């Protein structure tokens, strides 16, 4: 509709990460339980725009999506001198915690996709008590590589084109063309070497095999949802990961791939709505028990 203004609002917050000050762009909508959303490698927070615009969810949640440094509208820090960008487990963990702290979020829910799903597992391992619930989309402790990341950043290959073409196969064939194109557009816009640098965390530094067994879902519930068409983080990868974590919730999502929230928002909503409702119910029970204690 001509003139329609969407409900989310974008602002910048200054966040200190590893002693450097970063100017982080985030969008938010709604009020209630804080729900922080993490984008996939090489993309940005626009992937969450449909969730941010969801009238029902925003009645109960303060939905927040931020662009990681080097991504979207969050520039590299002012003191960056051009060295190769590489995301590590420690840096990613600190980024998420520092962002939540800067916004003074009280026990937020964190939902991350792909690398965001992987870091959610690390949050569950090391910092579970800080969060109300954790949701990993396309998440596993490890997955087998299927291409050489050196193709992503070299002068004789167009970075945007190759990044988008590689991940295009991770989108389900049933996803609407318009949403497929929008999902790929963010990959065509990424900074040089940023997708590759994110995958350093995914492929090299962030192997969580042998560590997820320590996750205690009594401290913080963990939900894992993976699209059936994701051949990068396969349903089998997610199921194997969940099998090591007592009471982790697992859902395999039909007709979805690696980018559920952006490649087919309507289909994703069918799967995420019950999860968010369950988190609200649990949150409400905890609050009542706290009142009676």
């Amino acid at each position, binding site marked *: 509709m001509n003139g329609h203004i969407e409900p989310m609002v974008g602002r910048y917050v200054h966040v200190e990460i590893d002693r450097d000050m970063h100017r982080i762009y985030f969008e938010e909508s709604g009020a209630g339980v804080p729900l922080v959303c993490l984008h996939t490698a090489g993309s940005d927070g626009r992937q969450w725009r449909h969730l941010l615009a969801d009238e029902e969810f925003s009645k109960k949640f303060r939905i927040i999506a931020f662009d990681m440094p080097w991504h979207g509208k969050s520039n590299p820090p002012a003191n960056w001198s051009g060295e190769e960008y590489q995301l590590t487990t420690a840096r990613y963990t600190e980024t998420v915690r520092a962002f939540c702290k800067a916004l003074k979020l009280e026990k937020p829910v964190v939902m991350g996709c792909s690398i965001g799903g992987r870091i959610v597992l690390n949050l569950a391992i090391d910092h579970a008590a800080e969060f109300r619930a954790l949701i990993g989309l396309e998440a596993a402790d490890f997955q087998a590589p299927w291409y050489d990341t050196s193709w992503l950043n070299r002068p004789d290959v167009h970075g945007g*084109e190759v990044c988008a073409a590689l991940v295009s196969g991770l989108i389900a064939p049933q996803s609407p063309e318009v949403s497929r194109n929008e999902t790929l557009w963010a990959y065509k816009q990424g900074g040089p070497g940023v997708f590759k640098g994110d995958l350093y965390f995914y492929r090299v530094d962030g192997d969580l095999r042998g560590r997820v067994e320590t996750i205690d879902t009594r401290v913080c519930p963990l939900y894992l949802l993976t699209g*059936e068409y994701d051949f990068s983080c396969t349903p089998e990868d997610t199921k194997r990961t969940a099998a090591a974590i007592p009471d982790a919730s697992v859902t395999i999502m039909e007709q979805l791939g690696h980018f559920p929230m952006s490649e087919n928002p309507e289909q994703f909503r069918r799967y995420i709505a019950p999860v968010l409702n369950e988190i609200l119910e649990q949150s409400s029970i905890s609050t009542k028990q706290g009142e009676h204690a």
Partner: protein
Amino acid sequence: MIARGRFLDCECLLGPTDHPFHASIRGGRIVDLTPAPVLMRSWRFSYRATAAAWAEYWQPAPRPGWHDLLALTKREQAVLEGDLHPFMVHLQYFKDVLALPRPHASAVPQ
């Protein structure tokens, strides 16, 4: 698709694992397709898949894991060999060209 491949001139080997074709591409157009082997003909890269893989890949809505060229290599139903530079530079082009036999789901009677 031809616009996407407008800078592509390449000799490559495409098709079934045991019976591939030599493809000559000029400016994004396939100008020659000849069954291999051809005596002493060179190619820069090859993408070959099992007959079962092509049959699955060309379904209107392919099954998970059979829906992408690199999903097929990951599940070892296809092999990618040679100098991969032209393939990677024009990756979406090759994905689209090799999916051409796939009918659109909307055109298939339910």
